[in-house]
């Protein structure tokens, strides 16, 4: 038996945290008319849902529902599915790093990013910051965390971004 999830509406505090994060990732406008709920657990998950399944979730406690776009702890961390939605809707580039084609396969195997393989990263990025990893077509292939700030993110010969989640996990985890 897989565990049923308890879904609920966001509290005002959670909504504020989420809205700040959506603004940071450049997708606040896109999410303005979208429905999101919290799936209880540790950590709490933020689920994008269609408006029509809201009442079903609150009534039946399904095993799975909607699209988990991220987790809420102290702040909001995007999931791979969230990264996919954000990357396709954002016009912002600040928290997105783009890698070259050679690095795509490595990321999909869960490998960290060498600075050499990053073709585009904002100089405003700080160390220890969450970033969405994009392939050359600007599609999200992973979520990572910076090990360096600014221009040092593209330095040669060093791992500069730790890969936290990658699209290859769909095969690894399911298998």
């Amino acid at each position, binding site marked *: 038996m897989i565990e049923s999830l308890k879904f609920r509406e966001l509290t005002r505090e959670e909504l504020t945290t989420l809205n700040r994060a959506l603004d940071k990732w450049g997708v606040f406008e896109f999410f303005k008319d979208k429905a999101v709920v919290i799936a209880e657990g540790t950590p709490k998950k933020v689920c*994008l849902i269609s408006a*029509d*399944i809201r009442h079903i979730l609150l009534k039946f406690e399904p095993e*799975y529902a909607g*699209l988990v776009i991220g987790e809420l702890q102290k702040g909001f961390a995007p999931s791979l*599915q969230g990264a996919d939605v954000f990357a396709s809707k954002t016009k912002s580039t600040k928290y997105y790093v783009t890698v070259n084609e050679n690095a795509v396969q490595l990321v999909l195997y869960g490998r960290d990013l060498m600075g050499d393989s990053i073709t585009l990263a904002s100089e405003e990025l700080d160390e220890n910051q969450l970033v969405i990893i994009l392939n050359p077509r600007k599609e999200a292939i992973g979520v990572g965390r910076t090990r360096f700030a600014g221009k040092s993110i593209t330095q040669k010969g060093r791992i500069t971004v730790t890969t936290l989640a990658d*699209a290859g996990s769909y095969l690894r985890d399911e298998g």
Partner: protein
Amino acid sequence: MKTLLPPGSDESRELAKRYGYDQWLVDRFLAYVPEVQEFLAKMERIPTQYIRVNTLKTSPEELQKRLGAKGFVLHPTRLAEVLSVSVSPMSVGATTEYLLGQYYVQDLSSCMAVDALDVKENIQVLDIAAAPGGKTTMIAQKMQNTGSIIALEPSAVRARSMSFNLARCGVSNTCILQHSGEEIGKLGLTFDRVLLDAPCSCEGVIAKDMTRKTSHEPADVEFCSNKQESLIAAAAAAVKPGGVLVYSTCSFAPEENEAVVNSLLQKRTDVSIEPIEFGASGLTEFQGIMFAESMNNTRRLYPHLHDTTGFYIAKLRFD
């Protein structure tokens, strides 16, 4: 319904021996599969592979261009979002595009069942026995993630596997409930569309699983048929007036197909069978048992005639 066993013949004995089937199965194929020799020969060959483009994420043209650049050779099919694969330089389940959810490896026949469901945006859909989620994700893309889909899957393992597929494909309008199809009534909900791709004896997928030539017995067909009759009755009770129920299986057995739909027609007077364009007509008679004339609106898909896995689809409209 009890499994009907036509008498054996020299022809069925010889074909069963040549292709490695239990004879009772070939006896039956001779009674309901056209051009049996061609059929049995086709089942020995690797079936055509199909991918269904996830239009939530890309377009058929764009995907064809991307996979083409990697050496795949893809061809259009009767359904705009489905492409057949004639050359694949790597496994179709291992490309970046697959991992990004841009397509789903799915047989054309199963996509035809979803096509028959006539899904629109902002409606309520029930998908019974939904895992691994190929049809569910296709319904979701046709609805552009609007409305709602309740996917029932009694197996926890299969429900988990399905959740990965929903996530990969970016589906946000679906929830999975761990229920069997017979429990639909407990939900107290009705739906615009209900898809029942019923558990079956899988005669239609022998080309993918050769063990099925000898692994099941007449009693298994009867067991499936009885289960399917109770499932279709439960599914029908969940359809709103004016709504559609699509019943499908990957079996050729009339006991699992026409007989099941016929059992519903005998119980309900508010249902009619709507035509489906592609495929061979459903049977109106089998071994002296007559089915409703409108059963010829249902469709049988044969590997050797339609280049799909073996499949059966019935589209039922409720007044």
